[in-house]
């Protein structure tokens, strides 16, 4: 699964580059992850949020805070590391949705009640400063040919106008 989704490296035809027009812009690397990989960014309340995957564990959800002084370093905080236990969400992927209540919502490609069909999860912020975030599984996807049969491997999460969350899945689902 991972290999099919991972952004592996392609060497495209060199002539493509010949027609490239570069704009005037200023590029900066704000933060580097080592050993794990960010899968996208969401902005809310002055910080960036995202999910990472890594091959040796089940991945994390992070917060990236801007430097307190210009030119300073950005600070990454792991808000939650998915435990590598059967039935729990694993391998978060795609964008996060930040709820008005401060909760984070996302999907995972693996884990869940149906043989690694993936999940939609909620992370509730700690009730006291420095406390732990609380994970709740909103939904477990059925995966291919599994009970539930509603498609597996969710790939994205979107917030609808009425507060509902909509999920796209990879294989045989909606």
């Amino acid at each position, binding site marked *: 699964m991972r290999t*099919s*989704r*991972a*952004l*592996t*490296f*392609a*060497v*495209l*035809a*060199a002539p*493509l*580059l010949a*027609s*490239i*027009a*570069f*704009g005037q*812009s*200023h*590029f*900066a*690397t*704000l*933060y*580097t*992850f*080592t*050993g*794990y*990989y*960010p*899968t*996208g*960014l*969401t*902005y809310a309340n002055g910080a*960036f949020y*995202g999910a*990472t995957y890594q091959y040796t564990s089940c991945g994390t959800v992070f917060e*990236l805070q801007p430097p307190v002084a210009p030119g300073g370093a*950005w600070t990454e905080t792991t808000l939650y590391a998915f435990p590598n236990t059967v039935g729990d969400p694993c391998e978060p992927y*795609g*964008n996060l949705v930040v709820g008005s209540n401060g909760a984070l919502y996302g999907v995972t490609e693996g884990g869940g009640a149906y043989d690694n069909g993936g999940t939609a999860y909620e992370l509730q912020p700690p009730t006291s400063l420095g406390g732990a975030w609380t994970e709740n599984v909103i939904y477990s996807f059925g995966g291919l040919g599994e009970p539930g049969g509603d498609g597996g491997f969710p790939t*994205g999460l979107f917030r609808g106008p009425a507060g509902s969350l909509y999920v*796209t899945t990879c294989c045989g689902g909606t």
Partner: protein
Amino acid sequence: METTLYTFQAFADGAAPNDVILGPDGSLYGTTLGLAPASDNGAGTVFQLTPPGTPGAPWTKTILKSFGYGYNCGPDSPLILHNGDLYGAACLSGGGVVFKLEPPSAPGGAWTTTYLHHFTDGQVPGGAMVLTKNGAIYGATIDESSGTGTIYEIAP
């Protein structure tokens, strides 16, 4: 009830569409992920699906930009539509690019591609990006060969 609006023809027409967004003009804008070189898995493209003038008639698909073929490679970020321009990211030789597509000044003309940054260090941009009100873009990259990923900023 499900209605098929468009069936991708693979090859140059693309296949495996990713996220689509709805524009104020009623069109859907999306991307296809380029797969194995020159195969029927399709090219990496940015496309527009325009609704028919009369209900029930076919939707019209236009390829706004083709990135050609690549293995699991293409414009894999959800597009951002802002002031009529499309922003996205795709892998390309050396790593990838963050691009901006501007609509033609006259109907039927070609869209103009501007590469806001070309990653040549192996980092491949992907996933959801953030466009701020002042025009800065923030996003994520992955380079599995070096075991690293980054968060980047492209300021106007």
